[in-house]
């Protein structure tokens, strides 16, 4: 096995194992928090974007365009350093909270656009049917449209989740010790590039595989046969 040790030194990686595990846990829970938040805000943005009122959909559209046209790195910096200067209570949020706010703000437009495509994919007949049995617009959205829409868009949602997980790698610029930070710490101390970065890559792939497995369960529960025939 010594040739394998030449390629990848397990002994040194072993010294940083707990740093990587801590980083992975942080990455997972931060991603999860941002996923839940951006999904719910995404529904609001999607509904705003489809609103017939010009004022409302224009605000949503402007927000979507601005966020999508600028890099996340810059957005994180502007929120972290700029918020305390603009708002008196800006310093209330610590690094972790700021990171969650920034990534949620960044992911919401993408989620919103995916959810909007999902809602648009539901036939008009569904809505008319719901209205004719006396559903309110809210009941119609909540019980009829959204469940079907979400089942239809699970694949792009999973794709966006994979991107979101990778986006958390930028958090180390505002001192949140996540997985990429763990890799950078190991690299900076030992300066062994191969082990530091390959290990980081493997950890991200592990999280990605975990996401795929979980989403497999979710797809079966949500859509079942109807989703597959799509």
């Amino acid at each position, binding site marked *: 096995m010594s040739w394998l040790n030449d390629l990848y030194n397990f002994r040194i990686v072993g010294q940083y194992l707990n740093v990587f595990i801590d980083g992975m846990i942080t990455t997972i829970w931060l991603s999860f928090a941002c996923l839940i938040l951006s999904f719910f805000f995404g529904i609001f943005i999607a509904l705003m974007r489809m609103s017939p009122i010009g004022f409302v959909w224009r605000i949503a559209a402007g927000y979507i*365009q601005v966020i999508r046209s600028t890099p996340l790195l810059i957005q994180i910096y502007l929120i972290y350093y700029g918020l305390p200067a603009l708002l008196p209570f800006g310093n209330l949020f610590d690094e972790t909270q700021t990171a969650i706010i920034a990534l949620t703000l960044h992911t919401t437009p993408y989620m919103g656009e995916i959810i909007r495509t999902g809602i648009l994919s539901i036939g008009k007949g569904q809505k008319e049917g719901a209205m004719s049995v006396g559903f309110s617009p809210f009941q119609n959205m909540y019980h009829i449209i959204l469940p079907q829409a979400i089942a239809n868009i699970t694949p792009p949602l999973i794709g966006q989740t994979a991107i979101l997980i990778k986006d958390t790698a930028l958090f180390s610029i505002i001192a949140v010790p996540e997985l990429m930070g763990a890799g950078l710490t190991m690299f900076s101390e030992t300066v062994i590039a*191969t082990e530091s970065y390959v290990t980081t890559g493997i950890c991200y792939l592990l999280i*990605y595989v975990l996401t795929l497995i979980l989403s497999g369960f979710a797809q079966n529960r949500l859509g079942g046969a109807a989703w597959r025939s799509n």
Partner: protein
Amino acid sequence: MMDVIFAKWHVTISLMPFLLQGLLMTFKVSIFAITLGSTLGFVLGLLRTLGYRSLTGIIGLYLHIFRGSPYLVQLYIIYFVLPSLGIEFLNFDSFTAAIISLSLYTSSYVTEITTAAIYAVPKGQEEGARSCGMSKAEALFYVVLPQSLKMMIPPMASIYVVIIKSTAILSVIGISELTRQGEVAILRMPGDIMFVYCLIAVMYFIYCYPVLRFAKWAEGTFGSIGSVQDQES
């Protein structure tokens, strides 16, 4: 008040040449990567729909690896880890490494889009073409692909914006793109850090916004297969 505006104006003027140079580099790298990556992704996506099981499996593995790990890690492995293997042709200079890694990253998304767009053309189209006496290849090139190409335009434009923004990471291997030029400027004028970051954001906006508008327009004109990051089923 006027003083502040004058000071910021002065900063803007003295930084503009550097930032424009950075924007040009961002433009150059992203155009190369988008062209190469789209070509590779299109071919892979096409191959994936042909139904050879081992080929589909290998392409699937490729996609998962590129989509499951951050681009920074991929860039590192291509630029720094591959040369340590001692194979001469894997020893890229930084510009080549940037373009190769970014093209591979782009291709992983374009493959998904191509596959999804081909599957989005109703089966009846191909069956109809075949029943008119076209071969499988003819049916693909004359009937299926023209329809799917149209549907690919909007999601491709969104992916291009993602790729343009990914170039910000290239500074680690010494490519002086927009973010890098901005950060070098910050070292000279650390007092204006927020203002410089705002300027950088504006420059990215100027480049990306027209692409997004184009996506919007294309979606209205050509229709769409739905969302951008369609996962393989």
